[in-house]
């Protein structure tokens, strides 16, 4: 029997005649305002094994900044992403319908793609007081996340809120804001922290998966190493000033105007793992990242640093003298691929298989051809 991975419609088709199916496609065409002649085209599309991979996106306690960051990318652009690369089957900000129509779209997307969709979660889950601080369509977000996550093939937490709680989890955390990995303890969750994260860190993770059928290497916090494998301090263009002891002491002072190191202004680059200085933001070239324009990093990606350590508090630095005086500046964190990824897998201890491969298996191998 031919295996259908992305869609259960073929299974349904075995129970209904082709004539009924064509009738359904005809009704669908009419309801979309299309000429009846396109029905065969729709029928072909629905049974096409090369369907775009389904993505369902949930919003919890957040500001939608992560979503917004995706509106400003070029490779791919938002239009290319949604129209040609993935099938964004549910997304509250971008959803055209609302109310009952939006809820029906959500339920259809989850049911029809059960076990096969990528679930992206933006925002934290407020767990205090029975979840009353975030309800959607009358239901607590806590319930929605649990139910939807159980049917997902892979879960990606976008932004610091979804990754570890973000700004709302700062003391005294009045709503009990919790990140997805902690809320869904025991489940593999890829995290892309940042406030918002660089859109390419998210897109590259998804595109890596779609292209190679597996996730990129992750660290012990579920973060892709290509984006979070190095300290900001290690790729910072102002590092030579740090090593030479040239610091800005106040915004607008002589050192600041000469582009000196912002360590004394509280820069958290020495404690923060992120690729901001190498990838930069919004495709405008030179200096487009916080330190580049003269503002200290506040560690927005790092739990326990961002929104926690005061902005002007000086960072802890492990290596304050030039690398020549030491052995390697800093070893790779973790002991390579399988240790970090395997830790996420729980039950599969010691197996020489990465989290990405497991998720790929669950998602099905339709994209690998017949």
């Amino acid at each position, binding site marked *: 029997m031919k295996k259908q991975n992305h869609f259960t419609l073929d299974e349904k088709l075995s129970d209904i005649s082709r004539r009924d199916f064509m009738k359904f496609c005809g009704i669908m065409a009419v309801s979309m305002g*299309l000429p009846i002649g396109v029905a065969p085209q729709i029928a072909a599309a629905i049974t096409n094994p090369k369907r775009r991979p389904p993505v369902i996106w949930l919003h919890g306690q957040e500001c939608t*900044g992560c979503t917004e960051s995706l509106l400003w990318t070029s490779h791919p652009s938002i239009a290319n992403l949604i129209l040609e690369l993935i*099938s*964004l089957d549910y997304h509250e900000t971008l959803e055209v319908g609302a109310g*009952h129509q939006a809820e029906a779209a959500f339920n259809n997307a989850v049911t029809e793609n059960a076990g096969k969709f990528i679930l992206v979660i933006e925002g934290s889950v407020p767990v205090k007081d029975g979840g009353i601080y975030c309800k959607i*369509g009358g239901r607590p977000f806590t319930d929605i996340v649990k139910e939807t996550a159980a049917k997902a093939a892979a879960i990606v937490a976008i932004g610091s809120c979804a990754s570890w709680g973000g700004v709302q989890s700062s003391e005294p955390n009045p709503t009990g804001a919790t990140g997805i990995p902690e809320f869904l303890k025991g489940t593999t969750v890829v995290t892309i922290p940042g406030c918002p994260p660089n859109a390419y860190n998210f897109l590259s993770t998804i595109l890596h998966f779609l292209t190679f059928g597996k996730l990129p290497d992750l660290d012990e916090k579920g973060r892709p190493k290509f984006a979070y494998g190095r300290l900001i301090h290690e790729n910072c263009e102002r590092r030579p000033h740090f090593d030479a002891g040239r610091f800005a002491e*106040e*915004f607008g002072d002589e050192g600041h105007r000469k582009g000196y190191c912002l360590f004394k202004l509280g820069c958290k680059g020495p404690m923060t793992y992120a690729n901001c200085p190498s990838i930069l933001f919004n495709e405008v070239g030179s200096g487009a990242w916080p330190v580049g*324009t003269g*503002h200290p990093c506040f560690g927005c990606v790092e739990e326990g640093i961002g929104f926690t350590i005061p902005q002007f508090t000086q960072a802890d630095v492990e290596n304050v003298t030039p690398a020549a005086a030491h052995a390697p500046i800093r070893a790779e964190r973790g002991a390579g691929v399988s240790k970090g990824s395997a830790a996420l897998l729980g039950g599969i201890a010691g197996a020489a298989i990465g989290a990405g491969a497991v998720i790929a298996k669950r998602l099905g191998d339709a994209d690998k051809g017949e």
Partner: protein
Amino acid sequence: MSALDWVDIVSALKADVKATASLAQKLSSWPDNGYTELKESQDRLKTFVGSGQLGVFSSGYWGHPAMKLPPEVNLLAAHHFLQALEYQKNINKVVAILGSKTPHIQNLAVGGVANPINLDSQSTLTMERLYYIKTLIDEVGDFIKNVYMVDVAAVGALYADWTGYGAGVTNYLSVPTMPLDTSGTKFALPGGYIPGDISKFKPITSFKDEYFKKNVKESIKHSWYKGDWDRHPWEEETVPAYSDFEDNGKYSWIKSPTFNGEHAQVGPLANVLCMYAAGHKPTQKYTKKMLDTANAVLSLVGSNARVSLNSLHSTIGRIAARAVRTAVLHNELINQWQLLVDNIGKGDYKTFNKPVFPKGEQRGVGFHEAPRGMLSHWVVIDDGKIKNYQCVVPSTWNAGPRNSTDALGPYEASLVGNPIADPDKPLEVLRTIHSFDPCIACAVHMVDSNSKEIVKIRAF
């Protein structure tokens, strides 16, 4: 995003591309309106719809009886929707150059900004950066004036009946913005208050304006917070007391702000009307341009209807005002860039004043005309530490529930009298709510006369 409440993308697939191109060329001299470009957009949409995977578009109201545009206008609008995605991305590059990244700029400092200016350094705001900004500003201007303004006028004209719906609260509040001096008494863009009648406009004139400071209050009678009070932001507290939806009790997380004891609408419409009333020339110019274009389209299609300044008090008026404000802001952006360059030329590189916090209790307020309307932050500082901090934000003004006198808030009032062709698919409600550009992920509830809830609508 709200364009899709009015524009039927699926109908665009049936459009005659040649007829669309000729219509487009009648409306505007925009170069990307040719047959080839339009055909490319239509083919792209055909492939997408033909894939059967409609994604977020599957829940749309395609073919809804309230969708009135001919296929050719739908195609033209869809074509420009795709182009607008590019332009909004490009103008945000200006924000990233100055703000480190966007969204969530990271260049603000208490007392100024963290951007040093030094034309002789490699690491600061340099001549190259300044001209990159200038170029991006110039490019988006062409799109705003030749596409965005024209499309809104044309689509608005074809939906001219919507000038009769959605006015709601017609008190308008807006604040002066883009200060031209360090004391905050001279502004590039004026603001003020319109108490229902534009001829009674009262200006707000400085960052320390007493009339503004004294008259802002918030009520929690119908909000999920403990107690029932009307307080000035400096005196407020925020203690949650959730009770689910009570028809006559508490039903919202949003507090209910008032000015002079009454609800006020904020946003581009409030801003445009206040600037118009204050005699701001560019605002008057672009408002006239918008109305003239809409009237030209009305006569082109043989309609006897005409629009005027009064038509702006409506759902479609809010959308038109957003386009007018965009043109006005673009105009001002060019001025602001020149002012910055002039200052640099004079050797004025100051970007930061170190703040001092005197002992004892200090009370302050900062305000700004944000994209969705007037934003104010109220702070009480005691011996250098924050004791109370309250944000009274644009969507709170508009989406707030009934106040302490049970008067309806702007969203609520604007829905009264909206036509609804199909109660199961109340597209018309979305049109009015989306016209405010809501920055909330909360529910709008419609209740029928027997207090039975019939429709729940998510508004984003």
